[in-house]
């Protein structure tokens, strides 16, 4: 292994003073973000992810080829690194996870930014901006989220975090209410004012079900999840990212879908119940980037992960136009062979069902409205079942916390959540048998099967 060692103590005397050094404190970076009016939530630093099994080569690439001074987490007791202790290092390497945190100046001067083109034979898989992760509350929560960095690394973070969150809320409110930017249609974010349950859960007869999905593993392959959302505190949570970005959801689509499939029985305050499988084990696989884009290879890697973890229910509110793809069909078959069921959104283009939902081995979901008619946007053709898909209320990342969205993307986690409830009723209800049970118990709707499949999904 070739490493150019950094001095731990030199930085305190002569190190650069910019806010995006590797050793910058979160306080410094938050202040800098506030001063530049940046609401992108980027810290200014970058995360270089090494290819699988190429950590040593990646370290060599950064030190020998790029001439960076590196600090290595292995040099610290129990690999617990306080950022201010990395001195004048250009980058801090976390060998256990194959990632290097690179200071903004060091990255820029060496062409290592998120927009840089990476050679196919490079040991570096991707370079992505580092984002702030917001937390509400305890040091234990922070330790759980970060995994590596000790709470001491963010000495006195509370005031700045709360201030930054208030600023973000104010900016958002100004933009949508008085800044001349209309709120997105179908995505109106507002606080719920009534107790009870969402229309979708009521339509699927979830509130009257005695089932909770207890212990059933539900994989949601999407844009990740807001890991610090208080509605999910204490829940069994397994995460993985396949797009080179942290699992933390900066898009909102993934957090919304997970909320519907797995959200709590009784959210705090006056918020209505919006989640189906409130005792499920959540597997959040990030297969879509924070900009909402991806490629089939990343989605397949997420499907592979969900199957490897033997998740009986795999929810996929992702897709694209075009005919069935053989690789999605094969993945769906692999899931069924293992007693697992992949449930996917048909799509919102008012056109034939897209991929992967159009694969014969994957259950396709259409969207219906509050009046239980097919949503105008819902794709058609190969449709197995329907779910509530307009004005769906669910969780979104903090600081907003809750919001409404529409789409077959929202119908799909209703079906996935109900699938988890059915799976709880019998260990034999898995794979194709679970598929058939969902269809045989669906509420018939007076529309062609090409629009609504067997009807509206129902809880047991």
């Amino acid at each position, binding site marked *: 292994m070739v490493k150019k060692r950094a001095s731990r103590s030199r930085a305190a005397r002569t190190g650069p003073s910019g806010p995006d050094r590797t050793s910058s404190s979160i306080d410094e970076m938050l202040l800098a973000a506030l001063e530049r009016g940046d609401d992108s939530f980027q810290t200014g630093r970058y995360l270089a992810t090494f290819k699988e099994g190429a950590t040593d080569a990646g370290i060599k690439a950064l030190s020998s080829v790029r001439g960076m001074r590196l600090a290595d987490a292995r040099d610290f007791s129990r690999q617990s690194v306080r950022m201010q202790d990395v001195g004048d290092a250009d980058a801090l390497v976390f060998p256990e996870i194959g990632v290097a945190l690179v200071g903004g100046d060091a990255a820029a001067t060496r062409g290592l930014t998120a927009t840089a083109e990476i050679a196919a034979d490079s040991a570096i898989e991707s370079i992505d901006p580092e984002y702030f992760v917001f937390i509400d509350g305890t040091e234990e929560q922070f330790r759980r989220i970060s995994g590596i960095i000790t709470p001491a690394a963010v000495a006195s973070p509370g005031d700045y975090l709360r201030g930054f969150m208030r600023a973000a809320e104010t900016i958002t409110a100004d933009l949508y209410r008085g800044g001349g930017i209309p709120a997105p249609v179908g995505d109106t974010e507002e606080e719920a004012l009534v107790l009870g349950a969402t229309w979708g859960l009521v339509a699927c007869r979830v509130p009257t079900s005695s089932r909770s999905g207890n212990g059933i593993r539900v994989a949601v392959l999407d844009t990740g999840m807001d890991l610090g959302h208080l509605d999910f505190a204490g829940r069994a949570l397994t995460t993985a990212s396949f797009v080179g970005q942290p699992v933390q959801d900066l898009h909102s689509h993934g957090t919304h879908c997970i909320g519907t499939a797995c959200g709590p029985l009784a959210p705090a305050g006056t918020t209505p119940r919006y989640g189906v499988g409130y005792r499920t084990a959540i597997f959040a696989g990030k297969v*879509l980037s924070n900009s909402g884009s991806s490629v089939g*290879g990343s989605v397949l*890697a997420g499907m*592979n992960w969900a199957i490897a973890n033997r998740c009986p229910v795999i929810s996929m*509110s992702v897709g694209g136009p075009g005919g069935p793809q053989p690789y999605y069909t*094969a993945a769906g078959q692999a899931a069924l062979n293992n007693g697992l069921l992949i449930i996917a959104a048909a799509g*919102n283009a008012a056109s034939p069902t897209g991929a992967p939902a159009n694969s014969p081995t994957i259950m396709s979901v259409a969207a219906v409205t509050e009046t239980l008619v097919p949503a105008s946007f819902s794709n058609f053709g190969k449709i197995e079942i329907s779910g509530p898909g307009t004005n769906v209320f669910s969780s979104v990342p903090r600081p907003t916390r809750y919001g409404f969205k529409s789409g077959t993307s929202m119908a799909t986690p209703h079906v996935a959540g109900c699938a988890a409830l059915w799976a709880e009723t019998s260990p034999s209800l898995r794979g194709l048998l679970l598929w058939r049970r969902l269809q045989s118990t669906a509420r018939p709707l007076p529309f062609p099967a090409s629009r609504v499949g067997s009807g509206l999904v129902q809880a047991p």
Partner: protein
Amino acid sequence: MAKTATTWVVTTSGDRPLDDIAADLRKRGFKVKKVLREINSITGTGGADLAAKARQVSGVTDVSPDVPIEIGPPNSSDTW
């Protein structure tokens, strides 16, 4: 810096060890990125002529170019 080559998804029948198939693909110029054992697929990069070559490998049932997926930007009403 070299430009990124076309990304391919190779689907296999599951009747032959994936590592053997991956080795044969490499011989034909395929740069293996991921071997997805649970779903019997291999992703990787290679030239535009790779598909025809890869289809000749025993156990390969399909070779398709990877396709982009887009659900729309954050907070967009235009999702998938």
